[in-house]
């Protein structure tokens, strides 16, 4: 079911302002690529117009059967991706704690050895012929989502001489408005590389780091098959439009 199919009135109000002190700053010099790619002038703020409050919605027609199964969606018939089998699941909520149904979630990751299927990745670890590394899904009526994959490996990257990315899965999330558009990364509970990572180190608040770390969730494991990790995602909330509508005479 998508938001468009539900009986709920579509959300139309302006979004709460983004808390820029909760996100990493544009310039985080330990992550060197930000030095030349971070705007230096102040962002110009304005109240949301329709251009920010509306956004694209995707139907089930953009999904294929194996889009939420990275173990099989690139594998040869009868084979499967190598690595620890895991289930990643969670809910998409807004800042008011309400579920966000019917929104597209895209994810991508390295294989179990820490290698991406991308021509720019020169890490010596091997490609897995049965692993592509991308998938997508749409949140259900309660905002819930899940997919099956293998646990990605950590890998070195050219920043400092010996920087390693902790194991992570990239997420791209749409909302009901273009101003909710978000890209983030999910990390795994207990990974000792998390505290060394220059990208995570750009987060000003330790609680924000914790928000990106998925705990092991034994309640969602499949015995003798896969462990599970829970990753809830929070998108910007909307103000109630009740009073604005009256003011504007709608």
């Amino acid at each position: 079911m998508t938001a468009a199919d539900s009986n709920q009135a579509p959300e139309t109000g302006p979004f709460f302002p983004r808390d820029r002190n909760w996100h990493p700053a544009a310039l985080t010099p330990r992550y060197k690529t930000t030095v030349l790619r971070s705007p230096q002038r102040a962002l110009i703020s304005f109240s949301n117009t329709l251009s920010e409050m509306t956004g694209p919605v995707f139907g089930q027609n953009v999904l294929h059967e194996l889009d939420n199964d990275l173990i099989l969606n690139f594998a040869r018939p009868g084979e499967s991706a190598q690595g620890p089998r895991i289930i990643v699941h969670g809910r998409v909520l807004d800042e008011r704690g309400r579920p966000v149904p019917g929104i597209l979630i895209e994810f991508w990751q390295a294989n179990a050895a820490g290698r991406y299927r991308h021509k720019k990745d020169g890490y010596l670890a091997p490609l897995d012929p049965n692993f592509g590394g991308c998938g997508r899904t749409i949140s259900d009526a309660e905002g819930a989502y899940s997919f099956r994959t293998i646990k990605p490996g950590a890998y070195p990257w050219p920043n400092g001489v010996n920087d390693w990315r902790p194991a992570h899965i990239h997420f791209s999330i749409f909302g009901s408005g273009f101003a909710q558009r978000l890209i983030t990364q999910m990390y795994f509970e207990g990974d000792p590389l998390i505290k060394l990572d220059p990208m995570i180190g750009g987060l000003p608040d330790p609680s924000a780091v914790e928000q990106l770390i998925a705990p092991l969730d034994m309640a969602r494991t499949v015995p003798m098959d896969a462990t599970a990790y829970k990753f809830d995602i929070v998108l910007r909330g909307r103000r109630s439009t009740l009073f604005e509508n009256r003011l504007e005479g709608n």
Partner: protein
Amino acid sequence: MPQPLDLLKETPSQTAGPYVHIGLMPNFVGVHGAHAEDLGGRMINDKTKGERITIEGRVIDGGGEPLRDCVVEIWQADAAGLYPSPSESRGTADPNFTGWGRAAADPQSGEFRFETIKPGRVPFPDGRMQAPHLSLWIIARGINVGLNTRLYFGDEAEANAADPILARIEQRSRVQTLIARRSGNRFALDIHLQGPDETVFFDI
């Protein structure tokens, strides 16, 4: 202690990284099989109403080099000024127009390109009309939080002069960083992340 407000915090942004194409445009980087077609590559079809235009540009870093690994998304109204979104309450947008596009920078030239239609005008909350525009969202390695900006059209001088968002820009010379030059049916705009020509980015 007063009662807690029970508001959640937005999930913190993290960079899209250098391999963003695997997730958003897998076919563009040769990861075939998972998805038949990359999302956002086709915004229009033969029946779409409106003037066909091409949007072209590059994203330039503080050293003057184009980003060859960025992804740009656009969101725009249809030719009548309606958004194809459930949150659009003024009417029903053109069913043959997606309103949303996604393009990767060319790995050699850094150029991105969208085939779309020129949008109609959309009202500001107080009822004044905004000039025709696209909303842009730029993600890449080295960009910690996706960058929001807008593209306005160089052949809309009168509408641009009355646009309530452009009017918010105090340094008037910076307005030009958002206005694409027209040449035939093509509109070109380079986005500068830093320097004297730094593009106006928005906190929306």
